[in-house]
């Protein structure tokens, strides 16, 4: 069977001088190429977990290995994020003065590809998300679903090992949300990328291969049983 791409052991994180416990000894393994949904109530620690996997935040203790890299000891986490991770946020977070093409290209500016190679990769992805005819449009001219498709293309542009999606359909209507989820799922399969998605919607979570339920900063088996099989 596949070796885990994400291995988390006894991960702890507290905020506000220790008054708020976000993660309380969380353990989790995610296999390469897996599509995992993370569910849990507000404040359970699911977004903190996603931020830890994406090296946007550091734990107080415990260990987190992603694709063989120990994030608790690695110094240059920006390089790791650039090469291994693609983020999709609830709010698309596109740069308003840049057009679709430029927004997707932004993560590539850290790399060494020439302009032609960048253009080819970006155009390929924009075709895959169905926006090849809107490359010169700025985000304010796009619908919510289109903006999220641009954000998905941006997340994939550097060939990451893992896509981390934080409530990617949270700001969309259900029909558009379904389209985005299907697109995410298809691209995860086509690009052979591990997909970890935080959601609080059970029907969204059930599109994944596996659901992980986080409660009080830990993975809860009870919660998973409550949700039933995927």
């Amino acid at each position, binding site marked *: 069977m596949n070796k885990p791409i994400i291995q988390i052991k006894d991960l702890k994180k507290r905020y506000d001088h220790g008054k708020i416990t976000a993660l309380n000894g969380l353990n989790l393994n995610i296999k390469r190429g897996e599509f995992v949904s993370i569910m849990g109530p507000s404040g359970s620690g699911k977004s903190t977990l996603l931020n830890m996997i994406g090296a946007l935040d550091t734990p107080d203790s415990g260990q987190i290995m992603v694709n063989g890299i120990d994030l608790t000891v690695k110094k240059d986490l920006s390089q790791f*994020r650039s090469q291994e991770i693609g983020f999709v946020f609830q709010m698309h977070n596109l740069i308003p003065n840049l057009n679709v093409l430029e927004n997707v290209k932004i993560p590539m500016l850290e790399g060494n590809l020439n302009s032609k190679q960048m253009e080819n990769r970006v155009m390929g992805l924009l075709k895959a998300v169905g926006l090849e005819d809107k490359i010169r449009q700025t985000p304010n001219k796009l619908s919510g679903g289109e903006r999220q498709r641009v954000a998905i293309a941006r997340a994939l542009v*550097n060939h990451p090992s893992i896509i981390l999606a934080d409530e990617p359909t949270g700001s969309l209507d259900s029909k558009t949300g379904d389209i985005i989820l299907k697109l995410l799922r298809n691209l995860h399969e086509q690009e052979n990328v591990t997909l970890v998605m935080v959601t609080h919607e059970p029907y969204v979570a059930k599109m994944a291969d596996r659901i992980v339920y986080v409660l009080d900063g830990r993975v809860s088996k009870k919660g998973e049983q409550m949700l039933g099989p995927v």
Partner: protein
Amino acid sequence: MSYFSLILKNPFRNKTRNALAIVGIAVGIATIVALGLVTGGLKAATSETLKAGGSDLTVTEANSNFMSGTIDEARVNELSDISGVKNAAGVLRKTPTINNPVKGGFGSFSVNGIPRDKISVVDIDSVEGAMFSSGSKEIILGKTAAESLEKKVGDSINLFGESFTITGIFETGNIMYDGAAFTSLDTLQNITNSQGEVSTIYVQVYDDTNLTELSQNIEATYPNELTASSASALSDRINEGLGIIDSATWAISLLAIFIGGVGVVNTMIMSIYERTREIGVLKAVGWRSRRILGMIMGESIVLTLIAAVVGTVLGILAAEAGLSLLSGKISPAYSLDVFVRGFLVAILVGVLGGIYPAYRASRLPPTEALRYE
């Protein structure tokens, strides 16, 4: 799109705010450039004027202004007898009251009295028309003065209550002389009750004469009475005065750096507040802190460079307009030095003003930046 094109693009996001910041910095740069051009122009004009004079030494009354003062006319002949002196001419300078002031000269219109046979000492070699005659009420006008007073050869002009006939018009290239008039020394002395007086003695020397020694010799012979200055020494004295303007330019530069720097800090901090989430996204997609730092610094410098271009154009226009209003004959001295100074100040403002906002942006924790509303 490249990293650099992104840096060039970002300052145009909030056009009004950035335009105001650019105007603020541009005014400072314009002041630096305009003062530099005007000071340079004045220095060049002074130097030209002093070089254009045919004399080697200018002797004036001790402790008096270069333009005023009174010397006993007998000193002219005494100076002529000093070893090394080839020729000496006493010039009496008087300022008549006239209705239309002369534009393009060094201030007011002056009438100079000089012996007819010594006119070459003030570098008037040729005259359109004819030279004035000794002891007559004839006068020659400098070209600038003639244009300004709308006079031509054959016209008459009323000066000191007497009517003079204009016999000639001359042009020397010396702003002071071209804006003035020359007549016979004794005529001017008589009608202004200045018999036996001159204002300045112009001295020509032989080629092998040591000017410094001669100056010292004159001043030692007539202590507390006469001061002798060579053209270069006079130029230095005038330039010393203009040096005050230079110092003012530097003081204004520092003020521009400070005010402009505060403006840039304010503009860039506002920009960063507005773009906090965006900076969080850039960190999330893998941008290193120093790349974000470089981007914000770059934007700050782009802003001030645009201000430098605008300020330079404004400075040139201000210098041209100012000098043409004050004096049509003095033009701004365009030198690379003035423009380099303007651009260096702009870059310095960009760097100093951009450091703090750029540092702040680069140190933003990505999770906090992404949560920012």
